[in-house]
């Protein structure tokens, strides 16, 4: 497993796209927190600054960047044909996907922790202290842990989707549109929407990080439940992807 992990690490770091994604992740993670902090200082509004506000960029566009990276990391192997070399080198195919999950999931979690550790003190420094609301690393343990788990799970979800659909275009479209459009569309469906809303994965992920339910959604569980639900959903999709690559002709 170590050798497969090492191979995946070389694959990941030898592509420029990975570094572009990493830069974007940092930019969005810190940028949104900073922007929120400046917004709070605007006397025209009555905002307060919390740990959740400081880390909005991580669970928003930062998360999307991680998911796109995950989806591309597996689908580009199908597109270029290197997946067949991967399976020649590692005939126990699940190891290939597991190594990708471990590597990229670990990076996602680490990235989230690092970014939160920078974004929160940064926001605390920029935002007017009068408008702080439990802002600071001292109270951020739960938020940061939830962010780390969500980022890791989101990467697994993206890898699972990529392994299932194989096409880069489709996989990227799904992971980009899912948070932006798919979930809100489902939630707004007439009649069924309100019943489905509490079971939408990313909505649950956001509940898990912020502890706040999105508008008009009656969740059946609290913060920990939302986090667990999203984690389980991601793992199930990831395992479906593993089954697919084990069963299919490469």
């Amino acid at each position, binding site marked *: 497993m170590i*050798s*497969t992990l*090492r*191979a*995946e*690490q*070389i*694959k990941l770091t*030898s*592509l*420029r*796209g990975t570094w572009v994604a990493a830069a974007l992740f940092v930019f969005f993670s810190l940028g949104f927190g900073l922007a929120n902090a400046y917004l709070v200082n605007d006397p025209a509004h009555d905002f307060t600054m919390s740990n959740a506000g400081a880390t909005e960029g991580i669970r928003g566009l930062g998360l999307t960047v991680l998911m796109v990276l995950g989806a591309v990391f597996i689908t*580009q*192997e199908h597109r*270029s*044909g*290197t997946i*067949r*070399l*991967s*399976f*020649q*080198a*590692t*005939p*126990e195919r699940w190891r290939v996907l597991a190594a990708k999950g471990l590597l990229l999931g670990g990076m996602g979690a680490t990235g989230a922790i690092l970014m939160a550790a920078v974004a929160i003190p940064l926001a605390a420094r920029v935002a007017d202290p009068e408008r702080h609301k439990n802002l600071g690393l001292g109270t951020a343990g739960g938020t940061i842990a939830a962010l780390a788990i969500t980022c890791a799970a989101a990467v697994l979800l993206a890898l699972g989707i990529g392994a299932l659909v194989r096409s880069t275009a489709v996989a990227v479209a799904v992971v980009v549109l899912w948070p932006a459009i798919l979930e809100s569309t489902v939630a707004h469906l007439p009649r069924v929407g309100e019943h489905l809303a509490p079971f939408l994965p990313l909505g649950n992920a956001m509940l898990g990080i912020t502890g706040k339910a999105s508008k008009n959604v009656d969740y059946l569980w609290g913060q920990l439940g939302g986090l667990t639900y999203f984690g389980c959903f991601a793992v199930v999709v990831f395992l479906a992807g593993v089954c697919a690559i084990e069963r299919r*002709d*490469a």
Partner: protein
Amino acid sequence: MIQIQSLTKDFGSRTVVDNLSFEVRPGLVTGFLGPNGAGKSTTMRMILGLDRPTSGQALIDGVRYRDLPRPLTRVGALLDARWVHGQRSARAHLAWLAASNDLPRARVDEVLEMVGLTEVAAQKAGSLSLGMTQRLGLAAALLGDPQHLLLDEPDNGLDPEGIVWIRRIMKRLAAQGRTVFVSSHLLAEMALTADHLVVIAAGRLIADLSVQAFIAESAISPTGSVRVRARDLGVLGEALRSAGASLERLDDGLALRVRGLSAERIGEVAARAGSEVHEIYQEQGSLEDAFMRRTEDALQYRSADESGTDASGTDESGADASKVAVR
């Protein structure tokens, strides 16, 4: 030793590889011949565990590919040289393959040197020419210093110099006692490189014999021909005709094209007739002819075999047969 045992692969209702059995022995270059679409690549993919056989199995030294530990050290394969990420450097491409099978990093530079890509190792794989990409693919196959090599049309995209080069490499690897299994749809190419031939068409085995046996067999076939020059062509011609040959005069009567007799038999007849022979030349085209005829026969047999029972299969064979005829 690679053993193919009753290997069958269906894609839906189409049988691409049909109850195929043969062995690939070490120390020889074994040519895997068949027209395009005969099932060569699918067979190779099944050997490597990339495609799952519908039935039957492929074994490498008695073990399925899937069950080989560190498989790159046992089997090296070049199925499609374009299986590289265009944005990754040639060296990085080999580096991840090496890491996946615990091969030392130094081995990457060794194989790059071996295939002559050291200078372009840092270049993105996408910027390499087709011939260089093919060399990179061969480097990947040689990475684990494997006992068995599977090469699918390795001379694809190589210039004449490159073709000679890869032929030499294959022969050297076989001389080292390795198993070299190389596919091609060009018989003439294989006749120069291979020691043994496995011929398939429409997924079925047509011939499994040494190159010499194939040449000898095709020489006595009606379409096989031998070019003969002699001091007194009239005397030799008579002797050959009475031995059952059909003759055709070439080069304003300076040479004969003989059909229906092998080169060996022509030599015998000439010796008995006391004729001074200047040239006996097995014409290469007859090999192609024999190969085509064999594959065509097989395809027609298959069409007849399946007519009425499986309409789609018949269509497929018919299309393949016409392809053979055109070529």
